[in-house]
């Protein structure tokens, strides 16, 4: 029987993989993908608790807000990455080490 802990396990695996990607990737687009993995793992948690803890639909409403924030975040972050690429000709985050554009 699949219970809450199985969903938490999937969500934990997704979060850990996202953290590994954040720590090890140099390409800015890869880092954005890792952030999306982490946000999705949080969403799985919210929806799973909304199903198994009988707390009503508040978890799902929170998850919708997380999706909204993720969409806004990825749009602005890609704009920044494109501007950085135009200035420095590199998508690697550790080459973007100047403060003055």
């Amino acid at each position, binding site marked *: *029987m*699949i219970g*809450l*802990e*199985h*969903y*938490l*396990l*999937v969500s*934990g*695996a997704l*979060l*850990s*993989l*996202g*953290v*590994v990607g954040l*720590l*090890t*990737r*140099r*390409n*800015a*687009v*890869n880092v*954005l*993908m*890792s952030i*999306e993995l982490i946000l*999705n793992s949080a*969403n*799985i948690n919210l*929806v799973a608790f*909304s*199903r198994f*803890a*009988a707390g*009503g*639909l508040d978890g*799902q*409403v929170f*998850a*919708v*807000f997380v*999706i*909204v*924030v*993720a*969409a*806004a975040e*990825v*749009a*602005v972050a*890609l*704009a920044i*990455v*494109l*501007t950085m*690429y135009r200035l420095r000709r590199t*998508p690697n985050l550790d080459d973007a080490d100047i403060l003055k554009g």
Partner: protein
Amino acid sequence: MTAADYVFWVFAILTVGSAAVVVLARSLIYNAFALLFTFFGVAGLYVLLGADFLAAAQLLVYVGGIMVLLLFGVMLTHRITDLDLRTETTQMVPGLIVGVGLFTIMAAVAFKTQWPEALRPLGPTTSDIGRMFLGEYLLAFEAASVLLLVALIGAAMIVRRKKDA
């Protein structure tokens, strides 16, 4: 095991397996398309959890919107002549140690805690979520709409080429 349990394992393996490809594969294109399958897997998990509206929103927003944006990011940050879109990794061993440690702790917590047994009955959720948006969560709903507008204008402002610069 019931049929729903098998479906859960299929979606769980699809989600986690393609997330591993996102993080570990070297080619940027492989990463992007593996992320697509991760989003599909998460949408499947939402369906199993009885969140029908959220599964549809996940497909529309993530697969239709965020995925396309990320693919644009992949295409626009590489010269067309770069057929080989390989990316570099740094600090692989410390990163893996942190990730495995994190997962071990969370798995231990998930299986050792006594969770409440109650189950929310399954049923359509869209109308209830809509009522909550326009009732209890009205302020947050309006703030989210302003946030989306600001992000839209801000993204356009940031990528704009300045004429005088």
